[in-house]
């Protein structure tokens, strides 16, 4: 017997190979080669034997003869693939040289490769190593994906917990600042009022950011539930426009919205869609230069309805479009009034719209500025 071409590869030593062949001589040759490489070997002379040995031996690789009495190699291969699925050990067929048809049928049955007789030691070793390596990589990858998704779930739990615990104190700070501002506990001097207003604005914006983080944690952990009912979407838009116009007025902009008559009711989760409408309106206000105009619009046809917001802001920089609806996808454009953002708002919008089976798109307008449009089907 030839000496080993190299010392046993420690990565693969101890890996288990099942040899299935009804020719004792073949088994002896293969077994000799593989044992010298440090593999653990089990042998059987039939397909039935292979199926019986598989669950207890749990091989990492199978060398499988094609022509055997009883069920042949292809049948055995198909059965193993059927029972153990994609996680089953790779199967390498043993074929006579130049049997192209055997090779094709073997691969079609789910085989990973083939070895032609008579065996070349170097070829046997190299091919088996290749398949064991890719099998090990697949195992490692699977493990890594599992670990990553666990880490991601912990991140979401942490995010949710942190945001949740921050929210109550923030709500108190904001509310108590409002009581002070409103003079409930006595009148304030102008500079005291100024400080209180700063506390109020800061806590308000922190509360919004914390809520966005909490939304993302909820959505990412798969807990976003849409509870749709019949709602007057048009009326909802009108209310949101009214509120957003308070902030718009501070920046000397205005949102125009002409409520169309006879708008049909829509099957939506009103609270969630209000979040989308608020977000699009607030974004338009945030990025609009003073003195510019914002136009909101609601329209519908027989199958779908849509809500659009056009502004005269800087538009979406080319090359940053793909970031727009992604988590933390803040663009290079700056809010015109120094407003804060988490970069989560549009990502949340997209997820809410997705949950309504709708679409959200953004386009730059020829005249400058951009338009965001949400389109939802009438029936989910």
């Amino acid at each position: 017997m030839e000496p080993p071409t190299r010392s046993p590869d420690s990565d693969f030593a101890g890996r288990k190979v099942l040899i299935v062949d009804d020719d004792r001589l073949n088994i002896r040759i293969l077994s000799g080669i593989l044992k010298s490489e440090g593999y653990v070997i089990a042998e059987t002379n039939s397909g039935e034997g292979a199926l019986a040995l598989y669950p207890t031996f749990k091989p990492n690789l199978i060398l499988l003869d094609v022509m055997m009495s009883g069920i042949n190699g292809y049948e055995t291969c198909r059965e193993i693939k059927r029972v153990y699925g994609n996680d089953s050990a790779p199967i390498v067929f043993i074929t006579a040289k130049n049997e192209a048809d055997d090779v094709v049928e073997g691969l079609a049955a789910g085989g990973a490769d083939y070895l032609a007789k008579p065996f070349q030691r170097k070829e046997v070793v190299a091919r088996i190593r290749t398949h064991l390596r890719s099998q090990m990589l697949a195992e490692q990858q699977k493990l890594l994906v599992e670990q990553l998704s666990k880490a991601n779930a912990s991140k979401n739990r942490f995010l949710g917990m942190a945001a949740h615990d921050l929210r109550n104190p923030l709500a108190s700070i904001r509310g108590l600042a409002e009581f002070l501002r409103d003079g409930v506990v006595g009148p304030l001097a102008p500079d005291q009022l100024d400080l209180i207003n700063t506390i109020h604005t800061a806590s308000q914006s922190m509360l919004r950011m914390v809520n966005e983080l909490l939304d993302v944690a909820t959505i990412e952990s798969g807990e976003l539930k849409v509870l749709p009912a019949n709602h007057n979407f048009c009326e909802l838009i009108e209310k949101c426009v009214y509120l957003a116009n308070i902030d718009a007025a501070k920046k000397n902009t205005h949102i125009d919205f002409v409520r169309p008559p006879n708008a049909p009711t829509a099957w939506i989760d009103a609270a969630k869609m209000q979040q989308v409408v608020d977000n699009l309106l607030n974004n338009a206000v945030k990025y609009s230069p003073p003195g510019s105009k914002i136009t909101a619009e609601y329209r519908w046809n027989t199958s779908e309805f849509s809500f659009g917001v056009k502004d005269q802001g800087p538009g979406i920089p080319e090359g940053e479009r793909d970031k727009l609806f992604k988590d933390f996808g803040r663009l290079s454009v700056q809010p015109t009034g120094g407003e804060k953002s988490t970069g989560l708002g549009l990502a949340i919008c997209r997820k809410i719209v997705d949950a309504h089976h709708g679409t959200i798109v953004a386009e730059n307008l020829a005249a400058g500025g951009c338009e965001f449009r949400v389109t939802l089907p009438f029936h989910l």
Partner: protein
Amino acid sequence: MNFSGSILLVDDEAHIRKYVSLILKQLGAPTVVEASNGEEAIVAYQKAKPDLVLLDISMPLMNGLETLKKLKALDPNSVVVMLTSMVNRQSIDEALAHGASNYIRKDTPKEEIAKAIRETLDGQFQ
């Protein structure tokens, strides 16, 4: 609001109690009794016999749901409104199923908190 009874406010966070009791004061509620946990709430309920209980859902030791069940066992006619900061509707639905009259999210603007309390009282004590 023509309401002259007392209100029991239960929350483990002192700043929330301070905040909400200011809202109640502005609403014109004459007597606000505070409790910082479920056990205290049960004792205070028996002593003060309040017309309305504002009850936090997530509290250590005895949470809002447990407290709600005990209050309802004690007095099936008790009027309980849950205070919540939760996004998940499950615990809210559970509280409503166990006899809570309404729920209020603590992070909504104070005008809305006041409105929800007023509506509950108007509905109960017209």
